[in-house]
């Protein structure tokens, strides 16, 4: 029986490599919270990346739980933050963007599905104070009944 030629193996591997290189988006902040997004089907695509500010919230992940507890927290960039920090964060983010983009910014709320609404309402109040009114509840797409399990 003749041996199978492996001459095209590099080509196949390179093809896969290129796919992943193109599809990769490097995360700019490491998540310190569990972040299972809820599901919705009436979704709209988010704006271009440079027009979006991200606010994460959820329970601290296992390795941070002995330090930060199990209550849901807000994460801004790479640190845990309190509700009072949100306004300053938005203003700083806004100032770092180009002038012409400053009025079209969207705030994406990437919040874990298990979080209580109290925290989110507090964030929304802070956003209203700094006039960041365009928000996006980031969700996975799928049927909403998956949320209720």
């Amino acid at each position, binding site marked *: 029986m003749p041996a199978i030629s492996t001459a095209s193996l*590099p080509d196949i591997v390179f093809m896969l490599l290129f796919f992943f290189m193109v599809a*990769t988006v490097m995360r700019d902040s490491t998540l310190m919270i569990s972040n299972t997004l809820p599901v919705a089907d009436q979704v*709209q695509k988010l704006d271009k990346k440079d027009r979006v500010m991200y606010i994460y919230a959820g329970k601290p992940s296992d390795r941070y739980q002995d330090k930060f507890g199990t209550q849901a927290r807000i994460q801004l960039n790479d640190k845990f933050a309190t509700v009072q920090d949100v306004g300053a964060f938005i203003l700083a983010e806004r100032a770092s963007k180009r002038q012409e983009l400053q009025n079209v910014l969207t705030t994406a709320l990437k919040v874990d599905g298990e979080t209580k609404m109290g925290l989110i309402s507090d964030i929304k109040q802070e956003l209203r104070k700094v006039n960041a009114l365009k928000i996006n509840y980031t969700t996975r797409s799928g049927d909403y009944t998956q949320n209720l399990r």
Partner: protein
Amino acid sequence: MAKRKAPEVNAGSMADIAFLLLIFFLVTTTIETDSGLNRKLPPMEDVVDPPIIKERNIFTVVVNKYNDLLVEEEPMELSELREAAIAFLDNGGGKGEEGCSYCEGARDPDSSDNPEKAVISLKNDRETDYKVYISVQNELVAAYNTLRNRVFKKRNPNFGIDYVQAEKIFNDPRTSSTEQDRLKSKLDEVKALYPMKLSEAEPSKTN
């Protein structure tokens, strides 16, 4: 002197190198979610004279701390919410000037006058789960989208697309500006017929 041939580079390890890179990218890849429900928050300024809205034009949706849904003070399953919201928005029970020529609802005098006046009021508790809140939001947005799709298709039968698809094309940065202008007037027309009036009350405190 005889010309020396350059020795050939051994390409046998090429596959290994490529595998190494491949594994690196496989591990670091996170396919990021970049879609969601777009919403607009109301501005902070206090309204001096809140407009008086008739009771029949308000559709109250309450989610309590046990994640139960109360619609117009009656308990309801989440799966029925979309239908109920559509029935309310599309009712068109107004008389004469207040009427609604494009509505296909029941024209119940105890429900909304016309879609322009109909307001959905969403209230949740501080202890409500975010995922339940998102489900409710999703269903309410779906109700508006269903109605907008219907009227968009009726007014633009030759487009072959519905409102949601048209909006997606409009928001796509690759769409040319002439195409965007053409869609914008159509989208605005439909938006004016079924304006999204979703008001959120500040959450109630749990004692």
